[in-house]
């Protein structure tokens, strides 16, 4: 099946998200769509999948113009999509999720779960996608959930499969497996649109590459193009792929963690007897695939979760289990992994968010009364210093772009003296300009003598910032290494292989 996009345009009010995009997807090719966050890749795919109505332009399938008012139309036309945020019902089984919308029924009414299970088995065998059809989706690891998504699309007879940022949640090994699956699908005749902002993956698996920037296709390339060239096409200027920094001058130990064990609200032990230390003026990178206990480790560090056992001592004082306020007052700064969930109050103004954890400070409150003038002055200063692009300091923070929302969090956390900075996914979903800015500020904070813990699933980020790297797998630190170690080796650690072989119990 040949898919052609001609002059597709999407406007939201005055904003043009997609500007006359032309693309052709040939049958049986892996077509990469490369672009940074906010370039308009997802908008394009949502139009293709019937989730958004195009403002202009047309879609042709095998030379016939088609329009998709709903995803149902797109599915009927042979388009399947694996969304970045999985479209799976967590409390349903794999089979139920796969049959949803096209159910196996008895007598036209009653569900035939047996038949659905068989259908999943057959597909999983045909394409080598291992999964248990009767498992509840919420109990499956993300890598397997992704397989379920692919099976779901295939069960609708997809001829063109759109994969939206599919590698963000996978280990290097799982990424390699996924690429193998993609090649297999291509060889069986399915076309694949592979959306990503990772240059390495594009080069590894793509047959053709289209680069999107600010809603336009700015060029096409083939996989032999160099990473630097691709990066320049993607961002529109030459990009430094590394952060300038001096080697760290290690000083006294600031953070000391011993025998830390944490249980999540569902009763699973997710951090298991972890110990490490971070010195002043040093960046410790915590690498690992999402869901291996990093989230809970971070929450324990800043006091949001009370650990079951262990000590978290900051300058020799145990701060574990005393709540975030105690940690904040002890000089811990925190950049949470999900800024709109934990970092900002969306309906609050930029001004209010800039004092979200400082409002009791003498600078901003006299007794119970807020010092409104000082709060406003502070906002002006931070907005200028951190180049936060906002209409005014009274604008609700939810109206800002992702990068600027993140800068609000960073500006706030850096506006008081810190002993320890804990940054979790500090640049997720942020444009390249803001990434560079935030990385520079973090290194500056390190150079001022703050101990820094960076948790990231992006190995590039870990390599760019860390002085030492700790790799987490299944709630444990399976190895602590220096950034000169090759990626493959960290990849092995992230998948749970340890050199001593004493991993799982």
């Amino acid at each position, binding site marked *: 099946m040949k898919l052609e996009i001609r002059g597709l345009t999407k406007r939201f009010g005055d904003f043009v998200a997609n500007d006359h995009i032309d693309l052709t997807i040939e049958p049986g090719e892996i077509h990469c769509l490369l672009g940074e966050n906010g370039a308009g890749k997802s908008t394009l795919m949502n139009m293709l999948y019937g989730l958004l109505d195009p403002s202009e332009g047309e879609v042709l399938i095998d030379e016939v113009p088609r329009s998709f008012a709903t995803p149902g139309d797109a599915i009927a036309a042979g388009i399947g999509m694996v969304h970045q945020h999985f479209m799976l019902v967590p409390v349903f089984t794999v089979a139920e999720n796969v049959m949803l919308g096209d159910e196996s029924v008895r007598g036209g009414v009653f569900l035939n779960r047996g038949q659905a299970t068989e259908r999943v088995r057959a597909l999983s065998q045909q394409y080598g996608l291992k999964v248990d059809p009767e498992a509840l989706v919420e109990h499956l690891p993300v890598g397997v959930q992704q397989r379920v998504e692919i099976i779901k699309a295939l069960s609708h007879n997809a001829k063109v499969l759109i994969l939206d940022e599919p590698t963000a949640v996978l280990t290097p090994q799982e990424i390699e497996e996924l690429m193998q699956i993609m090649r297999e699908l291509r060889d069986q005749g399915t076309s694949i649109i592979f959306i990503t902002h990772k240059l390495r993956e594009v080069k590894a698996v793509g047959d053709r590459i289209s680069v999107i920037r600010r809603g336009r296709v700015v060029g096409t390339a083939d996989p032999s193009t160099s990473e630097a060239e691709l990066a320049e096409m993607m961002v529109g200027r030459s990009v430094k792929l590394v952060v300038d920094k001096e080697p760290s001058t290690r000083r006294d130990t600031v953070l000391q963690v011993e025998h830390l064990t944490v249980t999540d609200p569902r009763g699973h032990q997710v951090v298991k007897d972890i110990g490490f230390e971070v010195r002043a003026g040093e960046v410790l990178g915590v690498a690992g695939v999402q869901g291996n206990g990093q989230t809970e480790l971070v929450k324990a560090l800043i006091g949001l979760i009370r650990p079951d056992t262990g000590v978290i001592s900051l300058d020799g004082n145990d701060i574990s289990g005393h709540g*975030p306020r105690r940690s904040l007052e002890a000089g811990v700064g925190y950049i949470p992994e999900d800024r709109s969930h*934990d970092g900002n*109050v*969306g309906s609050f103004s930029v001004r209010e968010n800039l004092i979200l*954890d400082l*409002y009791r400070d003498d600078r901003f409150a006299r007794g119970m009364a807020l010092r409104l003038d000082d709060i406003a002055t502070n906002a002006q200063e931070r907005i200028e210093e951190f180049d936060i692009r906002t209409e005014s300091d009274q604008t609700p923070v939810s109206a800002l772009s992702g990068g600027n929302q993140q800068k609000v969090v960073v500006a706030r956390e850096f506006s008081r003296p810190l002993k320890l900075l804990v940054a979790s996914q500090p640049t997720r979903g942020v444009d390249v300009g803001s990434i560079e800015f935030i990385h520079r500020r973090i290194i500056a904070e390190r150079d001022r003598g703050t101990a820094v813990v960076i948790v990231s699933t992006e190995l590039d980020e870990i390599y760019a910032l860390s002085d030492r790297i700790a790799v987490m797998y299944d709630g444990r630190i399976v190895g602590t290494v220096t950034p000169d170690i090759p990626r493959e080796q960290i990849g092995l650690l992230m998948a749970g292989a340890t050199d001593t072989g004493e991993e799982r119990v």
Partner: protein
Amino acid sequence: MSSLRMTAGWWASAKVTLAAFAIALLIGAVLIAFSDEDVVETLPNLFTYPGDFFVAAADAIGSSYWAMLKGSLGSWHAIASTLERSAPLICAGLGVTFAFRAGLFNIGAQGQMTIAALIGGYVAFAWQLPAGLHLLCALVACLIGGALWGGVAGVLKAQAGAHEVITTIMLNYVAASVLLYALSKDAFQRPGSDNALSPQPLDTARFPSIGGVHLGVLLALLAAVLVWWVLDRSTLGFELRAVGANPNAARTAGMSTTVVYTVAMVIAGALAGLAAAMNVLGEGNALSPTLVGSIGFDAITVALLGRASPVGTVLAGLLFGAMSVGGVAMQASVGTPKELTAVIQALIVLFVAAPTFVKALMRFKDQGGGTTLLAKGWGA
């Protein structure tokens, strides 16, 4: 630039609100017309003499609404009644508003008022104290009673995660039972009587009256100013609003949702207690099973109409007070049933809370205005 924008938003919002009122009054007018005997008599001849129908309907609608207006604002006496009727609505509405801003939907003003009236009423009729001191004690007792009952819901929410909509509803019924039980005991009954009716509050515990309006009305307005200050200008309000809008971010920023939920419900309960004081110490009503009436529930609609802002709540409380006083006058003078006012009130709130509907109906261009109140489910 930004101030211009705010003006535009304000006007759009006001336009939507006015339209919502107009639609509600229009539907009310239709109901008035069909509840009027003269109008109904013209119905059989609707197609032969449509004029009769419209004349009769216009007469019924006009005289009803005019009677309502005159009855609520037409004289100083009417205005005084309106103010006194509004005072408890404003106070209880403020309680709902206050909890609302912390993300709690407090349906429990009814129960909080009941317990407040029970405790405050007892102090007011049973204790013998000098004039000023007695009033103060009774007032404080009311506040404590309400705070206590609100606090229970707050603690249950904070400690056990029990949804406040369910707990406050249940606490309303429990409070009603407690009141009935108390009124079956000699200590709460009028001497020599076996009815569920307490003695009258003593004069020493009553709010003094100025120009036909009791002093409690002033206290209600002061409470509104205080609530505004706390919500908008204090660190407590900052915490409260942050927890209400995004509890996760608030917790991450070092705020304690447990403390905020509890404090918010205690204060909300105290405000409902103040509402009970208007009833017991202001109007001097004795305790009876019907003492609170439906004020606790009306308070929710008042707060919703006031968009959970203190100023809005005061205005909405005044409006509802006026409609309630006017409704009685309307029934007395032109015979239109006073039950109609409840329908119109509900319709006003319905349309005000659904700005998108009003805009679509009136074909207003969407330029913001009319924010929808906090949307949240059971999970929070």
